[in-house]
């Protein structure tokens, strides 16, 4: 058995490895390399060392702004998405009438693509703001909260499904034991349900965190390219494509450097977050 495996292992490994290398590893390494260069097209570049990194943190005016905006957006949406999704999941596991319909209704927005969602919400939000004689560009806060609402609408359904699965997995005897011990509903929630769904919390916060941090198409469709509502991913895109002229190579390099910093941040946050919540999980 072991021998056969050893003999045929390239057949199984090579296709996947090749796909991984071609579509992920090579572009990734190239991307990191290009962030230390100035280039117009990817196959011809000039090494400039750390210059791009220095530029994005000093002379570039948009990077730190959109980084901070992204952090704010991520914090707000992680909290709102998870709290609302968890509450809905609790409601929809109580055996209410029409539970299945509600689950479907809440899940459906997740099936719609980001660009479409962005345009739908831009119509809705501008329709409402139109009554007050303004539109979403009037105040950067409108753009921000519009994006939060959109993000909630899209992600709540998906997170809800994960929480429902988690809640249904809680053995009935735990709830019964709590009830016999005289725990109130609130106490059962805090001391039984929440610890038992910690694995779901881990996966849900992880998903919302990375999804919000990497948000791009919804941002583009809802806020256009309005400079004050651009999150990090959109800012990278604009750095790369919206500059022409003599310094094109430099802007390309800076866009690449921003993308690398972006990757490091996503990786770091995800890692820390994953470790932190893992420790709270209860074995059962």
């Amino acid at each position, binding site marked *: 058995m072991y021998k056969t495996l050893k003999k045929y292992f390239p057949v199984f490994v090579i296709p996947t490895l090749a796909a991984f290398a071609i579509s992920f590893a090579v572009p990734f390494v190239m991307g990191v390399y290009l962030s230390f260069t100035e280039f117009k097209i990817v196959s011809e570049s000039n090494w400039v060392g750390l210059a791009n990194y220095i530029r994005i943190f000093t002379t570039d005016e948009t990077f730190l702004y959109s980084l901070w905006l992204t952090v704010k957006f991520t914090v707000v949406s992680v909290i709102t998405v998870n709290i609302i999704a968890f509450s809905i999941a609790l409601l929809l596991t109580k055996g209410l009438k029409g539970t299945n319909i509600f689950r479907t209704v809440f899940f459906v927005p997740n099936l719609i693509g980001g660009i479409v969602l962005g345009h739908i919400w831009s119509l809705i939000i501008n329709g409402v703001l139109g009554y007050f004689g303004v*539109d979403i560009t009037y105040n950067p806060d409108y753009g921000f909260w519009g994006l939060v609402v959109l993000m909630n609408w899209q992600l709540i359904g998906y997170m809800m499904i994960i929480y429902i699965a988690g809640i249904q997995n809680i053995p009935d005897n735990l709830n019964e034991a709590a009830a016999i011990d005289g725990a109130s509903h609130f106490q059962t929630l805090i001391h039984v349900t929440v610890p038992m769904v910690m694995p779901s919390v881990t996966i849900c916060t992880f998903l919302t965190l990375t999804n919000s941090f990497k948000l791009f198409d919804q941002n583009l469709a809802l806020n256009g390219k309005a*400079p004050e509502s651009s999150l990090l991913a959109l800012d990278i895109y604009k750095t790369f494509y919206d500059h*022409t*002229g003599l310094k094109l190579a430099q802007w390309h390099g800076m866009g690449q450097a921003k993308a690398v910093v972006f990757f490091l941040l996503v990786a770091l946050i995800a890692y820390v977050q994953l470790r932190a919540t893992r420790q709270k999980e209860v074995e059962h």
Partner: protein
Amino acid sequence: MKKIISVVSAMAILLCMFTACNGNGNTDKTNSPSGNNQTVKEIRYLNFKPEIAEAYDEIAAEYKKETGINLIVETAASGTYESTLTARMATSEAPTIFQVNGPIGYTSWAEYCADLTDTELYKHLTDKTLAVTSNGRVYGIPYVVEGYGIIYNKKILDNYFALPEKATEYNSADEITSFNALKAVVEDMQKNKDKLGIQGVFAATSLKTGEDWRWQTHLMNIPLSIEFRDKGIDFTGEGYKTIDFNYSDNFKNIFDLYINNSTTDKKQLGTLDVTSSMAEFALGKCAMVQNGNWGASQILGVSGNKVSAEDIKFMPIYMGIPGEENTGICIGTENFFCINEKASDAEKKAAEDFLYWLFSSEKGKKLVTEKLGFISPFDTFSQDESPDDPLAREIVKWMNKDNITNIPWNFTVFPSVHYKDKYGAALLKYAQGSITWDDVKKVAVEEWKREFGA
């Protein structure tokens, strides 16, 4: 430790793979020019204008029939030309013919632009100053002349001039030759909008980011062109890298007129696009819209269109700059053919031949005027070989008017999309009332300087 070593070595291998690919790519490129004697089988062209993508299929078929060379035309989706070009240039099938949008666009791609000084096509260029040059050599040849101004609906204006309650002394659109006249007529028309059956004089001033080029680029061109003319700046030096925006009050004049006499409240302009403005004009909801001759199809092609071709006219954009009674509409181009310097000599020659064929042979010229709808800047075209749409005819008319100087398209030296977006965003905020005009002026001047790094 072992793990780290294996990760590092894996990375190193990948890096080698990458540099190896890179090396191969380069040798391919250096090898190809040696194959000079080979016959070229195909020319690749990256087209900028999606609206005429289909016309190129016909041109390709015709050229194949005549010469046996395949013309492969790829069209970049609207607003993605630079990114598509960036991606295609890195491949082995890089476009042989591409385009830049002027002197600034040229600097982006300078090392990819072949010297076109000795080409037949350049020799036939009517106005040699239109070409993109650097150190006395030609690198980009304009292939279409376009124009923009205030497009007005003659029927609605005539209705206004016939109104008994009209409060101005003007009786025809031709009498409007200054900002004061325009302002008086527009404001009086706005007062009488219900009698004229319109919702506002001007179509909505679309200020959505990316849809605001009619103001941050086209309208901005006028005060800056006059400023460059006053200062004697000719774009070969460094003079254009700073601006004073001396005519900012004039810009404000016309911009205020647009946003205060429009179909849409000025606080709700931030989400509107050009297409909807053009539709308003087409449906007769407004009498004027600022746009160019490419907009003719957007007017006549809208379903339910209420404007007939003979009522679509151009008027210069007056903003109160001294001497404006003798200025015309803005005529120029931002489309310049370039030939890829990195292609083989045979390919370059084939590309030159194709371009010359397109703009000089009988068949080519017919395709250009009828299918592409270009007003061509070459002397191979006679007066009557111009396209048959109302705004193109208006441009030819303005070009041939005595005592009228048309304004060139100097926005080709505007620094970048980033600059335009910033300025557009400032205009939007001004329209919404959250910043003052002085702030707008400051953005215009300072961002310009910053983008040029001066």
